[in-house]
């Protein structure tokens, strides 16, 4: 790889001969070169941060733009995760409510329930008597006084049937069979809302994914542009180091680290923004959950979320810088 003027193609010579033949190129050992390569990386990473903080306004603005662009999809993602946790209790198991005729005898209903329990399509049956239904309704609706004024209980007995499977054809078949029973007044298959919820979640997921892709592209462009400016500002330096024998990799390195810095700083600020958002919303969300009788609490960004956000942002910064240097550094050649 290392091409040298073979000034030392004259191996064993006396000093005077060597002098006559021209100066001998200094050599650098492989171990030294590796150490120096690592040293240059270390130096460039430090240098990148130093430059980042040397112009806090402009670097900060760039990092903030990146942060905002990342915080939006990140917050959406976090919200979605929390939403899924909130509805996790509704595990998507469909349930069939069988409203029994008002005139049906309780014994007949109970035996019907037994019969259903024996059915292989049915996982379980809960019997709710008209009295229980009324008590529950009074408690939940707060219309206790109005109901107390009625002379008879208007509510029928209900059988809550939990099907064994969730295959929709089987569910429909089961529902039809339940409808055919003489005791049945009406059958409600509570599946539509479960499906809607799943669809809504999927919609949210895809929206956040699309938004994340678009904004990631935005971040990439911001980094490309910032790095392009950095390259322009250091044009002279690039020319000089190329003339003293710098490889393209050597010239690229500081800019790649700068891109990494931007990305990482943007990711950290984005994480901070999301954390602040969670902190602000945690109170109201908790209160709301209490009102619905749920113990749900908003979950903030965890460590994996933090690592993912910072790592992803750093990667975006690095890629943006790479795109910028690939385009611009080879164009800067000594003339």
């Amino acid at each position: 790889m290392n091409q040298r003027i073979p000034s030392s193609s004259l191996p064993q010579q006396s000093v005077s001969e060597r002098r006559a033949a021209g100066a001998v190129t200094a050599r650098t050992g492989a171990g030294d070169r590796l150490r120096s390569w690592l040293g240059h990386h270390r130096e460039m990473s430090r240098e990148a941060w130093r430059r980042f903080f040397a112009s806090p306004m402009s670097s900060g603005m760039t990092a903030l733009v990146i942060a905002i662009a990342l915080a939006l999809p990140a917050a959406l993602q976090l919200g979605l995760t929390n939403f899924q946790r909130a509805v996790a209790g509704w595990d998507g198991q469909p349930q069939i409510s069988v409203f029994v005729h008002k005139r049906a005898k309780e014994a007949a209903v109970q035996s019907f329930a037994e019969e259903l329990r024996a059915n292989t399509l049915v996982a379980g049956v809960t019997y709710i008597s008209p009295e229980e239904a009324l008590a529950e309704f009074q408690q939940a609706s707060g219309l206790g006084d109005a109901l107390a004024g009625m002379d008879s209980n208007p509510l029928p007995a209900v059988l809550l049937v939990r099907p064994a499977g969730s295959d929709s054809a089987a569910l429909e078949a089961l529902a039809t069979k339940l409808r055919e029973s003489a005791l049945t007044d009406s059958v409600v298959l509570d599946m539509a809302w479960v499906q809607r919820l799943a669809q809504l979640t999927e919609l949210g997921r895809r929206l956040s994914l699309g938004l994340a892709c678009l904004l990631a592209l935005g971040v990439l462009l911001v980094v490309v542009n910032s790095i392009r400016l950095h390259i322009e500002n250091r044009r002279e330096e690039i020319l000089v180091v190329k003339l003293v024998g710098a490889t393209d990799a050597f010239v690229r390195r500081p800019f790649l680290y700068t891109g990494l810095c931007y990305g990482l700083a943007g990711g950290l600020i984005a994480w901070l923004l999301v954390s602040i958002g969670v902190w602000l919303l945690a109170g109201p969300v908790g209160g709301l959950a209490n009102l619905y009788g749920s113990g749900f609490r908003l979950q903030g960004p965890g460590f994996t979320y933090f690592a993912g956000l910072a790592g992803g942002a750093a990667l975006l910064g690095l890629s943006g810088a790479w795109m910028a240097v690939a385009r611009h550094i080879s164009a800067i050649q000594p003339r």
Partner: protein
Amino acid sequence: MIQFDNVNKRYESGQDALGRVSLEIERAEMVFLTGHSGAGKSTLLKLLTAIERPTRGSIIVGGQNLNRLRNSQIPYYRRNLGIVFQNHQLLFDRSVFDNVALPLSVAGCSKREVGRRVRAALDKVGLLHKEKQNPIVLSGGEQQRVGIARAVVNKPALLVADEPTGNLDPQLSEEIMQLFRQFNAVGVTVLIASHDLELIARMQQRVLTLQAGQLIYDGYPSREPAYS
């Protein structure tokens, strides 16, 4: 050390900067390259430093054919050259030390080695006491000496200088030339492009004269006129 064989350089504009130039410079020679501006001095130096490639002909430097040099090999080729510029091309965002250290850090020298060699180079040009200063505060002559220290810090076999005394008064020019002569004395091949004929005459070294892209003179001006 340097061998030009029928080298022609035609720029994209169609202008012939060099036409069929053949010359040979031995190891440890000190040679001046002269001629009016536009005669092809800069083009010759650019070919030598692999900034430009010849249109025709071959250039061999230290046994290496520059025509066959891939772009990725150019940096490694340049590490064996010392280049001194007319406007010295120092970086004003770092100290004298760091400017001189540039070729070494580019080549990947250890910190210790860098310190040792940079100080040796600065000592040779008499600026060791200014290593921590920013080159912007130095005088023109001192800046050029820093440029020379940077060119020789890698102990190159070939030192190429483009109008190194272009902006300096005669006395400083003389000092710079003495420096070049010292490097030459330890075996470095030195090629200096200059139009300062008086200075060149005093140096009593081999002179190559270019005119309109042609080599019209190759000899010792102490005995005959360089060009008229």
